[in-house]
């Protein structure tokens, strides 16, 4: 669906995107994860024909993004980082115009607009100027606009940046639904580790214009090792005894190590046999944070989101 080979974009002396190669399969959700300025948006702009690559080659839906830009545009849907909405027009007017620009007849465009308004739950607000919409409604309208011509590949550039948690989850659900119900291939960029983890089948981590690692969330996490267990005891002697049973050392009253050959049950049974009772015991999955630190040597400074 998307094939990218050694794609480069330089602005003056700076390489915003530096020899990036990857491929996205049909029906997949693929995430580009990286901090601000990593080259995510520039990549999207090149793949969607808005910006010409300095070097390299890219194909979307089998069409070359430079030589067949019109075919590319007809087959893709794009939601850029800023929502692309004229505030003076109503939601319905924007959707109908969009349909007409994608060669639909007036009746077809009107019917499609009605459908999409229902899908993104904007039927009631349809005839109000979009300038009066809330942030979440505007994103939903923006998403609807990208779907007008039933694209098979969808590009979402930071679809939830700046949204509150509730609207974010709405967008996540919408993205999943598009992928599952219509089999739409989705390329999304995000600076939120949780978002990539939550939505994407495969993730490419991009930093300073280069892809530093690629794989499923689990594959990436395996790079930094498996689950770790952390326990806290009332006194240091207990902690020491517990640590020794697994061949590790305690740090004061705390013990933590990578589980590796043990299962959580092994640990609990072993502690129980020795009559040891930790005050607190937690098992932690490695996060994409850890992955980012490991593959780039830098700690992650992207956005933080809390979803409870």
């Amino acid at each position, binding site marked *: 669906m998307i094939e990218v080979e050694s794609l480069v974009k330089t*602005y003056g002396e700076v390489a*915003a995107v530096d020899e990036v190669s990857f491929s996205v399969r049909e029906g997949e959700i693929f995430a580009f994860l990286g901090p601000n300025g990593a080259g995510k948006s*520039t990549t999207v*702009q090149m793949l*969607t*024909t*808005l*910006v010409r690559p300095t070097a390299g080659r890219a194909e979307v839906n089998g069409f070359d993004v430079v030589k067949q830009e*019109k075919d590319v*545009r*007809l087959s*893709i849907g*794009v939601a*850029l980082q*800023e*929502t*692309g*909405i*004229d*505030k*003076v*027009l109503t939601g319905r*007017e924007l959707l109908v*115009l*969009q349909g*007409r*620009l*994608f*060669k639909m007849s007036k009746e077809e465009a009107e019917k499609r607009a009605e459908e999409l308004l229902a899908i993104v739950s904007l039927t009631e607000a349809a005839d109000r*100027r979009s300038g009066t919409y809330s942030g979440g409604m505007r994103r939903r309208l923006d998403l609807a*606009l990208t779907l007008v011509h039933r694209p098979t590949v969808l590009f979402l550039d930071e679809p939830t940046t700046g949204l509150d948690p509730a609207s974010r989850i709405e967008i996540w659900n919408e993205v999943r639904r598009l992928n599952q119900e219509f089999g739409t291939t989705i390329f999304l960029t995000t600076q939120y580790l949780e978002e990539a983890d939550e939505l994407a089948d495969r993730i490419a981590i991009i930093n300073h214009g280069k892809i530093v690692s690629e794989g499923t969330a689990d594959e990436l996490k395996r790079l930094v090792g498996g689950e770790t267990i952390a326990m806290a005891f009332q006194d240091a002697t207990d902690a020491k005894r517990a640590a020794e049973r697994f061949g590790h050392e305690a740090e004061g009253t705390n013990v933590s190590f990578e589980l590796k050959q043990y299962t959580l049950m092994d640990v609990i049974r072993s502690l129980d046999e020795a009559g040891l009772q930790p005050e607190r015991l937690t098992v932690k999955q490695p996060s994409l944070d850890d992955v980012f630190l490991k593959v780039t040597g830098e700690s992650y400074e992207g956005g933080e989101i809390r979803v409870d």
Partner: protein
Amino acid sequence: MWTETWLFTKRSLLTTIRNPFSFIPNLLISVFFLLVYTSGLSSVASLPQFEGSDYLNFILPVSIVSGAVGGAGGTGQALVRDIESGYFARLLLTPATRTAIVLGPMIAGMLQLFVQTLLIFSVAFLLGLTIPVGAPGFFFTVLLAIGFGLGFAGYSVGVALKTRNAQAAQAGTLLFFPLIFLSTTFVPKELIEAEWLKVAATFNPTTYIFEGMRAVLTQPEIDWGALSAGLAVAGTMSLIMIVFAATNARGALKQK
């Protein structure tokens, strides 16, 4: 491409109508110019170089053209708003051609100037305007006004796309205001005394628009030579500006 252009034109017209303050002040200023110039300067028309024509007929083109310059600036500003809202990027992502995307707002700008010109004419008629050659005088003046307006709207669209800044787009059109006055604005060329101003007026395209309009407004018979020169200048300007605007459409999304 024509369907697309029409769709973009319709959309721009809708946007203009919903933002009445984007055109009302400009219209008021044009009418104000007309009133002030006519009442303040009308006695110069008794000079022989005016060949007996009324000063109102002579000055009317100035009001129309300065209104066109101001109004066309609004076209560029509307485009800057689109770039800032991200809507322009969405339009670039449709299969619509770049030319249609910039031509739509230009045509809408031109239609706005058409209505504006009609309104200025109505005020002039109220002030007692009579056109010696009759209806063709009216028709060709309007034609020249919208031709010049289309060119100017293209200029402002091009500047807007190049700078992506509303102030710069406005400043770009303000730079053109001197052109209106470095011309046969208030008196015929024979009456201009400063040699440099005569030279400037000769090279100034606005001069030919003025002369073209006056060729059908002030004379007892149409001066076809001056009229064709005016129409040719308006046509050429429009074409050059459409190309200027369209070639800038792609660059509009370059990172700042």
